[in-house]
């Protein structure tokens, strides 16, 4: 087995300072600063085209940065080609060498380090064991299933004992079950080896479940960096709120900020929220109330009172198994989604509920106000 890295000072500290990357005058990555301490699992999350893959490739040395600096363990990487950076990368298409067996693929990086045959054999045996690939060592990549190829790609990267492992949407092509299995494996491996992992994904669920911290990117910029719950509970922008998880955005009027609470009007009814979740008020700005579907409850006679109550009519019901999604129309025709846990205690969900009047409730902390998207 590969022992955890000990002895030397922890490796894998990656510092990005105002990194910009551009192609032909167009900035793909714009002044991104990010400090990734040794041993951290960080996800770069964002829609396609947001620059997350380009940023990853810049760290790998596969694209040149225009401005800023990338330091790995205190060493400035400017001018350092990819093959001298001592990091590893798993590519989106895996990039296994098609003419080499599993063993040769994994041995490639070790042979370049001029290790003797015995040492190489030993390293490969242990990594094959670690990733359950022992039986497959003499197969060619095309003779492997998607999940097996994935494991070979990871093994090939880990065997060179990188201080930093970069993964570019490695599980995107796999089915859900396999993806979840490999996520657990990569997380366990990362903890065990103590390496820094930078994981690029557009899958918010993947980012939230895997990472110590999530870096949300949008249009080349770093939108927010924080732990999964910070990103989900306290998004700093409308973009983050909208991209991570699902959200109802509702137009509100007459926003008034006080010290502790902020008041506004939703379909003419008073809504109260915590002022810490309200932006400074600007003139001529439209505001939106953002609230997650699972934070809204459909109240009945026995429900405890909630700070905010608003009435509406059920227009659609979607049965998802573990939960039920209701689409409710408010008095001003705005619609919102509500996700209820299917605890079995509620009335049987179904078409019979369509057109029914309901009262919705949520707590002061559950909603956030953002300036409306222009």
């Amino acid at each position: 087995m590969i022992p955890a890295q000990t002895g030397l000072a922890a490796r894998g500290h990656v510092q990005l300072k105002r990194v910009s990357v551009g192609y032909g005058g167009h900035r793909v990555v714009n002044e991104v600063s990010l400090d990734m301490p040794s041993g951290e699992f960080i996800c770069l999350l964002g829609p396609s085209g947001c620059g997350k893959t380009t940023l990853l490739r810049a760290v790998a040395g596969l694209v040149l940065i225009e401005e800023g600096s990338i330091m790995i363990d205190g060493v400035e990487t400017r001018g350092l080609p990819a093959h001298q950076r001592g990091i590893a990368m798993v590519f989106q298409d895996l990039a296994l060498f098609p003419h080499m067996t599993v063993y040769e693929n994994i041995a490639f990086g070790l042979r370049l380090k001029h290790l003797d045959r015995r040492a190489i054999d030993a390293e490969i045996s242990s990594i094959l064991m670690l990733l359950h690939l022992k039986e497959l060592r003499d197969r060619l990549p095309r003779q492997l299933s998607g999940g097996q190829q994935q494991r070979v790609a990871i093994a090939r990267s880990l065997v060179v004992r990188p201080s930093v492992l970069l993964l570019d949407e490695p599980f995107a092509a796999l089915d859900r079950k396999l993806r979840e299995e490999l996520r657990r494996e990569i997380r366990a491996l990362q903890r065990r080896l103590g390496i820094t992992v930078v994981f690029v994904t557009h899958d918010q669920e993947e980012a939230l479940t895997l990472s110590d911290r999530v870096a949300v990117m949008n249009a080349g910029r770093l939108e927010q960096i924080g732990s999964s719950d910070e990103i989900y509970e306290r998004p700093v922008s409308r973009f983050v709120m909208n991209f991570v998880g699902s959200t109802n955005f509702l137009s509100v009027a007459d926003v008034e900020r006080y010290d502790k609470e902020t008041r506004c009007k939703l379909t003419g009814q008073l809504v109260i929220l915590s002022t810490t979740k309200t932006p400074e008020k600007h003139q001529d700005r439209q505001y939106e109330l953002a609230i997650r579907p699972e934070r809204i409850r459909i109240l009945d006679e026995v429900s405890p009172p909630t700070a905010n109550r608003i009435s509406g009519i059920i227009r659609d019901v979607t049965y998802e198994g573990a939960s039920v999604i209701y689409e409710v129309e408010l008095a001003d025709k705005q619609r919102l989604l509500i996700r209820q846990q299917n605890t079995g205690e509620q009335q049987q969900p179904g078409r019979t509920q369509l057109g029914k009047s309901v009262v919705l409730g949520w707590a002061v902390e559950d909603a956030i106000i953002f300036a409306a998207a222009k």
Partner: protein
Amino acid sequence: MAQPGTLSPSVGVSVRLLTAVALVLLVVPHLVVVITSFDPTSAALFPPTGFSLRWYINALERRAFREALALSVVVATTASAIAVSAGTLASILVVRHQFIGRRVLITALQLPMMLPEVVLGLGFLILFTTWRMHVSVVNILLAHAVITMPYAVRVITANLQTVSPSIEEAAHVLGAGPLVTLFRITLPVIKPGIIAAAIFSFVVSFDNFTVTAFLVTSRGTLPIEIYSYIRTEGDPTIAAISTLLILASLTGVIATVRFVGFERITGTEGSA
């Protein structure tokens, strides 16, 4: 409307008929040559009047033909070696790198295939005369390298385009410099394309007549010898040589298809 993949009866019949006509036109001339080569008379009659191998013996015994064959093989081998080496590097440059003048280079690499051979032959003749290059073999060799290069570039480029650049990047990240990546990753992966390109180039060089005719001063390649023989003699020796060449070509084609696959050669393969 007909279903995709099926043809309406009338279209089906005409397509089959056209295919048959095309096949007949392709095959019949070759068959005529093969059959004539066994004719015992020196008149090269069709249909033949008997069966004889004397023209085969004549072809193999003539020193001019043997020398011409040797020269053709040497020229074709050397020219295709040059074309494939240079073509491989050019393909990598054009497929993997962005630079000013890339499109111009792509066109330039295909140019010898587009130009009439008479123009090329005359061009080479004027050029070599101006440079006072009078060694016929060297001139033919250089010209053939230029003529075969477009074919090599085409085949290798087609192969290289099916290979994801990420495997080269993966090699870099794992610690391989540019040269190691070239020799351990890129070249082995496009080996089928390189082999196909070599075969193509060899055949193109071996077959070439027009450009070679401009440059021959002393010894000629096989096509040149065949042509000069046919101008003085009318016997089926040429048919015999042709039959042997057809046999060699067929063997080569079958071996190639067996070895690298038809799709790789024609570049019609979807992905690596």
